[in-house]
Every structure is written in C-alpha cells, then in structure tokens.
C-alpha cells in the first residue's frame, strides 16, 4: 500500500499529528488485513513563501522516526515547485497525469503490477490531505471496501463537518469522491493517468471520480472510515472558502462543464460571474477564457475516454454550483 500526501505550507504540529495518525491506522489495518509493505510519501510544494520553503530537516526526521517505528517506508519529496494537489499526487505516484489514457485492461485491485524497472508497484493507493487526522479504523475500512472489484474509489467520511453530497445509505455509492481522503486500486489510478493537472487545486477529485465511473466502476462513500478534516464552520454551517479556493473552484466548475460538453452550464456560470461574482470568481473565469482562447482546455470526456455522450451525461451532473443534489 502506498499512502500519499501533498503539503503546501501549514504548521508542523498538525502534520506530525497527521502522520502519527496514519502510522496508527496502518497498524490497525495490518492487524486486521495482514498488509504487506506500506510506504508513505510526502510531497512538498513549499509554502506561500515559495516552493523552496520546505519542511525543516528536524521535522522530516521526526516524521521519519514515527513512520519507521510503524515499519512504514518514507519518501520525502520536495518538488521544487508548486504542483498543486493533483499534480503532486501524480508525481508521487509516478503518474504523468496524461489525459485520456486507455480505459481498457484496467487491472483489478488484486492484480500485481510492475513498474518500468520491474519492481512491484503498490496494490492500493491511499491519499490524505495533510490537515486531516485519520481515525484508527479508517485505512482498514477503506481497503476492505476496495475488495469489491466494482469499487473504483473508496472515500472516507469527513468529520466534524460531513460533506453534504449524497450517497446511497445501503451501498454507499456516491457521485464523486473527495480527494481529502480516498483510496483506490493503484492500477485504476495509473490507467486513468492519475489526476488531470488542468485542475490545480479544486475539481481534480470530481474529474477523477467521473472518469472512474465512466470506466464502469463505482465510487463508494465508506461511512465506517472516518477522517477528521480541519475545517472550521462559519455561521452558514459550512467552512468559508479561501480566496484561492473561490478562484480555483470557479475554474474547476468551468473546466468540468467543458469536459462534459455542457456549454449551457459554462454560459450560465460565466454570465453569473460577470454579473455577481467576486473578484476571485472573475479571476477563475478569466483564466478559463484565456485557456479557451489559447486552445489549452483539456479534451472533452467523449474524446479522451471514447465514451458515448449518454455515458457522460449520466455521470457528469451539474446541480447549481455543485455536482450532485446535496443531502443538506
């Protein structure tokens, strides 16, 4: 199993606590599922001060000690640039992030793969945000869920602020998985080319989830796999997006609509942004228009995945500003 996280700034204390929680959750998973080798990769995008503002050596040492105690291999990878979430995860997983990989011959979760050097690649890929704290049962519950070959991504439940997107109470099936805490067969991730780097901060998880679903697998929300995510509610009951999230959120919405060939959604959001959007929304819209003009937009799903418009329409849904009808 490979566990990955991508850091961009943040304090050392929560990161140390997070890695400690990962080690503890791996121990539980080992006891319950008898895992083979486990490695943990931390990709470092630096911080707002620049890509060179990586973790101090003593913190890296502490992380190494915690992981070593749990017999977990540790790769600390300073990227030297800010790759964003998806780009960082791709780099750590050794996936180029190419768009439109062939969907056929996707290995199942039980298959063993070899990398270009002939070394075995992990069976499972687990990704967490570094501002999380993993409840001890979470990793084993996610992996248990992946035993079902139909499951393309197993998503953890976030606490204390649960994500409002819907899921089937019996099967756990959900329209998309949050990249905050998810597990998937490594082969699925690789065959899909990983995250699309067009999505820098937001929407990469929705895009990956949709591609997984268009490949015939399901996304499962695993209630019994809880992960504390450091989100603080405002008076609305939801967290307040940061300015960067607001900008990237708008860009992601437009990119997803573009890939789904939903021009009316694009028009609607561009119109709304021009009339009511914040400066950050307009920034995201401007970037989209810029890409549009320069022909830099990612390929629509139909083209890159060779799927029918009906398949795309069934998967890629837009409800207001969201990608499904939320539960609350």
């Amino acid at each position, binding site marked *: 199993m490979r566990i990955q996280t991508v850091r961009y700034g943040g304090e050392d204390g929560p990161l140390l606590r997070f890695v400690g929680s990962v080690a503890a959750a791996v121990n539980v998973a080992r006891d319950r599922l008898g895992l083979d080798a486990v490695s943990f990769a931390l990709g470092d995008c630096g911080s707002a001060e620049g890509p060179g503002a990586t973790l101090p050596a003593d913190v890296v040492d502490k992380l190494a000690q915690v992981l070593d105690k749990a017999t977990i291999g540790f790769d600390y990878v300073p990227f030297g640039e800010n790759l964003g979430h998806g780009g960082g995860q791709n780099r750590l997983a050794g996936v180029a992030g190419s768009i439109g990989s062939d969907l056929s011959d996707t290995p199942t979760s039980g298959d063993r793969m070899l990398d270009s050097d002939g070394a075995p690649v992990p069976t499972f890929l687990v990704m967490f945000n570094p501002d999380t704290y993993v409840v001890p049962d979470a990793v084993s519950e996610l992996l248990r869920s992946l035993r079902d070959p139909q499951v393309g991504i197993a998503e953890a439940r976030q606490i204390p602020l649960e994500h409002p997107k819907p899921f089937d109470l019996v099967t756990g099936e959900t329209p998309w998985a949050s990249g905050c805490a998810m597990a998937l067969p490594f082969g699925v991730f690789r065959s899909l080319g990983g995250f699309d780097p067009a999505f820098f901060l937001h929407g990469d998880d929705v895009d990956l989830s949709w591609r997984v679903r268009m490949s015939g697998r399901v996304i499962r929300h695993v*209630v019994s796999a809880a992960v504390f995510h450091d989100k603080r509610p405002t008076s609305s009951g939801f967290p307040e997006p940061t300015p960067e999230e607001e900008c990237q959120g708008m860009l992601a919405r437009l990119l997803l609509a573009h890939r789904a060939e939903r021009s009316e959604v694009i028009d609607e959001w561009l119109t709304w942004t021009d009339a009511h959007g914040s400066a950050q929304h307009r920034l995201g819209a401007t970037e989209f228009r810029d890409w549009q003009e320069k022909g830099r937009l990612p390929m629509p799903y139909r083209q890159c995945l060779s799927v029918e418009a009906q398949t795309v329409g069934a998967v890629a849904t837009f409800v207001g500003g969201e990608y499904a009808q939320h539960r609350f």
Partner: protein
Amino acid sequence: MPNTASDVGADGHLPPSAFEETPTYRFAFSWDGPYGRAVHLVEEHAPAGLVLDLGCGYGAVGEVLVERGRQYVGADVDSLAIADLRKRSLEGHVLDLTVREGLGEGIAALTAGRPVGAVLLLDTLEHLVDPLGVLEELSGLWDTSVASGLDPPVLVTSIPNVAHFDLGAKLVGGRWDVTPSGLLDRTHLQMFTADRIERQFAARGWHSCGQDDVVLEHSDQTFPVDHPLLVDGGTARDYLWSLRSEADPYGIVNQFVRAYRLDRGRTEPVRPVRHGQAESIADPPREDDGDASRLPAPFLSVLTRTQGNRPAMLAEALACLAAQTVDALEVIVLVHADEDDVVASVRALVANFADDFTSRVRVEQIRGGGRVAPLNAGLELACGRYIACLDDDDLVTADWAECFQRCVAEGPGKVARSICYSRTIRQAEADEQGTTTHRVTLTRPFAEFADEDAIRETFDTLLHFQRNTTPLMSFALPRSLVTELHMSFDERLVVCEDWDLLLRAALVVGVVDSGTITSIYHRWEGEGSTTSEVPTQQWNAAHQQFLQALDAKPLLLPSGSASAIARLVSDSRIEGSFDEERRQLHQAIEAMEERERQLHQAIEAMEERARQVERDRDEQLNIQQLQHQHVVAMDERVHNVERDRDALLNSKWWRLTAPLRSVSTFLKRTRH
C-alpha cells in the same frame, strides 16, 4: 498557653479594649468547650498510659483527667503556671517547645520511661514558630514503638480556625482585628485551616482518628455590631456564606478539636499538587510541596462520557481531541459501565490511536450512579487548569481547546465559552452502511442555540436563567471552582445538570467568549439521546429544580445587569400592557367567532331548508313526470285504439261486411 474565646466566658462580641503586657491564660474547663471535648477524645481513643499535656498553661484539664483515672503530666514554658499545677498536686514541668534542639529528649525525659497514652497540644501549636517541628519530634519519639508493634500515644489537639466565616467576611471589609485572646489572639504566630492541619499532620505521620470540633456560628470576631457583612440574613453576608459553605464544611468551626494516630507508613490518597504549565500562572510552592509533587498540569482536562456501546462515535470524538491544535490537554474517558469487558474494549479502542495521544488519555471505569456520576468522578480525576466535557456522540473542531485557551488568556479564572452549533442525526439502521454503531447525518450544522437566527456570540447571564444556549461541550470551567468551592454537577438533576453548573459557575467568576463556532451538538432523531428520551415535562421540572436551588441564596450578577434587568422589567410591563390589548382582541375575536358560528348555523339551516325545497321540488317534478308519463301512456293507448279503429274501418273485411251491418241496423230499428 492562651486559649480562644470559646473558653473565655467573657463577652466575645465586644472588642477587647486593651492588651495585657504579659498575657496570662487561665481558662476554665467546660465539657462543651475544647478542653472537655479533648478529654472525651482521650477517653475514646487513647490507650492506657499517662497523658502528656504539652503547652499546658494552668492545666485546665489536669484534675478532670486525674479524676477519670489518668496520670497527668503538664509541661509549659510558663514557670508560674507550672508552680500553680504543682500547688494543685499535679505533676508539672517547665519545657520550652520553641527550642527545637533537645526537644525530643526533653519530652522523653518527662515520661521517665512511663508508657504514654496521649499527648495533648491544646491551643498550643498556633503559638509556636515551628509547630511542625514539634510534630516531627513527637513522630520521632514514637516511631520505634510503632515499629515494635506497641501502641503509640494518641495526639489530641485543639487549634483555632483562621478560616472561620467571621474572619473572612471582615477581611473582605478590610478588617483584621487582633484581640488579646480568641481566634486572632495577638500571640498567635501560626494560622491554621482544616486543610493545612490535615496536610501537615499527615505529612508527619499523624492521621485523624476522631474529631469533636467546637462550632460557633458567631465567633468572638462577630464585631462591630451591625457590621454590614455580618448581618444575619443580610444579602451580602448570605452571599459570602454561600461561597464559604461550598468551600469546606468548617466555615463556623471555631476550634478544631481532633485526635490523631501515628502511622508513618500510611499514604494519604492525596492527589499530587499540580501547577499550571506556564511559569506565569504557577502557584508559589507551599510549605509541604516537595519537588516530586510539582507535576506539570495540562491546560485542559477533557471528560468524555461513554457507555461503551457506540465505539465508532467514541473513536470520532477522540479523533477530534487528538487533532486539537493545543497539545496541553489530557483526556479522561469515563466508561459508565459495570462490565469489565466494556471497559477493556474502550481501552483497546484508545490503544489504537497514536502514542502521542494515548499517552494523554486515561480510561476510568465508573460503576453505578446516574448519568451525572461519571462527570463528577471526572471532576475529581482532572488535573488540568481547566475542565471541559465532550460526550462520545459529539464533535469539535481542531481549535476547540485553542479557543478556550484564548478566552483564558483574556480572562483567567473565568468560564471559557465558545459557540455550539447543532445538527440532527439518526442512528444508522442495520442494513445501512457502517451498521448501527454509526450515525446518519440529516442536517448541516445550524445555529440552534442562537437567538432569532443570529449567532449568540456572547454569554447572556439573564437569558441563561430562562434557557440554555451553551451546551455541555461549548464551555470550559476553571478547575479552581472544583478545588476551591467544591462545585460539581448536581446529581439530583435528571437533565440540565450542565446548564445548572454553568450558570452557578458563571455567577461566581463570569464568562469570557471566544465568539467562535467550535463544537457540534448532535440532536438525535428518534431514540438515542436525552433530548429524545426525556419528556419535556422532565426538562421543565429539572429547570425549576435548579432555579429553586438558586433562589435559596442571593445572586451575584455581572456588570451591566442593572440596566439589563431594568430593560427586562420594562419589556415585561410593555408586555403586560400588550397583554390587556391582546386579551380584549382575544375577546373580540371570540365574539366574532361566536357570531361566525351562529351565521354558519343559520347558513346551514337555510341550506337545509333549500335542500328540503329542492327535495320537494324534485318530488313534485317526479310526480309531474309520472303524470306526464301516464298521460303519454294514455295518449299512446288512445292513439293505438284509434289506429286499431282506423285499421278496422279501412280493412277489407269491414268493407265486405258493410251490407251485413246495414241489414243488422235495419232489423234493430224495425224491431223497435
């Protein structure tokens, strides 16, 4: 040695007018006073042997003890007093307890090898520079007899209580009246409280085996007359008394009269004294604090109640605590269950967490009691400067403890409070993901504990008399309220115990708000929580119950309350005038409703009449229709007859028979 006013027999309510140059204390014996009580303790607890009265003064208990078969030996630094003893045929020796060197040998010499049944230190220790040294010497003298299995003497003491309510109340008013004798005898060099006595004696091996304290509601310090803080039934006095009486049960003890046994090996179940983590808030060391006892205290003790029956939720609550941005917290998981295997499963669950967290978690089993029992047990177990609670089905954000810490920095010693949001959940069903140990979230967090959809960011004391907007997990109490005023959750309350304690605490120390949403209260849909299991009537009853308890004593309200109360009264009067208008309107509405009802009845009657008319009309119509049908039928018959007639008249047969009918007609005419 001098005595307190309880034995003076003088008017203790008046301030002594002048001090004598050389005090001489010659007090009378009374069975109700400390001397009589001391003799009782000797009889009750002391083994056979002489009674050694150290600091005996004029030996007020000498004759009484001799009369009761005890051999009495008095010792005092006052040679005149000793001479007086001897004159009374009592054994007396001059002994200076203030000189530590050779003191042990001196005391031993007094016994002259005779077995000692009791050592008396009556109104003596408070006059010594080093009273604890005397206790140490006594312990040293009889350690060997304890080791040899022999009965050591019982130590009987009488010590004035410097924490008597009268002294504290007057000190609040800026008075400290030293008197020739009594609680503040001018020759007192040491002041003792019950706590100091217990700690100091226990530290030297002397453990209480009996007590017969002298209780005086009005001590010799109850002066001047009409002191505003001492007026019986006065609001200020009653309020101060409500605080004093919560601190310990000795507020009106004038004299601690107690017996002690020597047992060096016994360890008292005394919690180590913990001090605040930051140097700036560390208490100064006390005389009996060793280095080992000065353990660093966490900022926050978190009490987590669980019955062990929803492990998934407990794990999530613990994850919230593990993810706190403040490390200086301890977690006490209070497992309210009699079954050991339940506790074992909770321990196993905790052990699955990372080491840096589990090292700060204690799991304690709480047997019996109601739902409040674990919380009170937790208050006793807590070591943190502050105490907060998080039940196993609730969740908090990562800055929950940090926000409390911010509040404490702003208002040390006050109640720290944050905002709590609520959301509705239900128990997962068996066929749903995650099984029944999980919850299903039904709503996003919402401001249930807010006022008219606005977040109630600040604590409103007056509002909290009427309703609670501060659920259990949204406040932290200074532990000093527990250690100093012995505040705890009221176990008589079935519900609302958190509301009650919060209010009582707030009324004493006040509240500081963080203004941040840091916790989520889970309101259960269906079964699973007190809100769903306890009927509204019980909530209301509990509310009334703790209001009545508050009614029993004066209230102290925070600054700004005067205007707030005036507004409340004004609002209620406006409300009252509205009530009259509302009553008249109500009457008018009722009259209109009555009129409407009558109109409805009239309409119904008219409608019934109309229906009757319709019925009659229909009946008539039916008759007409029947008649019409009959006419038609008759017409039809006529028509048919006419048709038959015409057919007959036109038939061939009729024509052929015409001659016959002519003949017949002719014959008929001719016959007539």
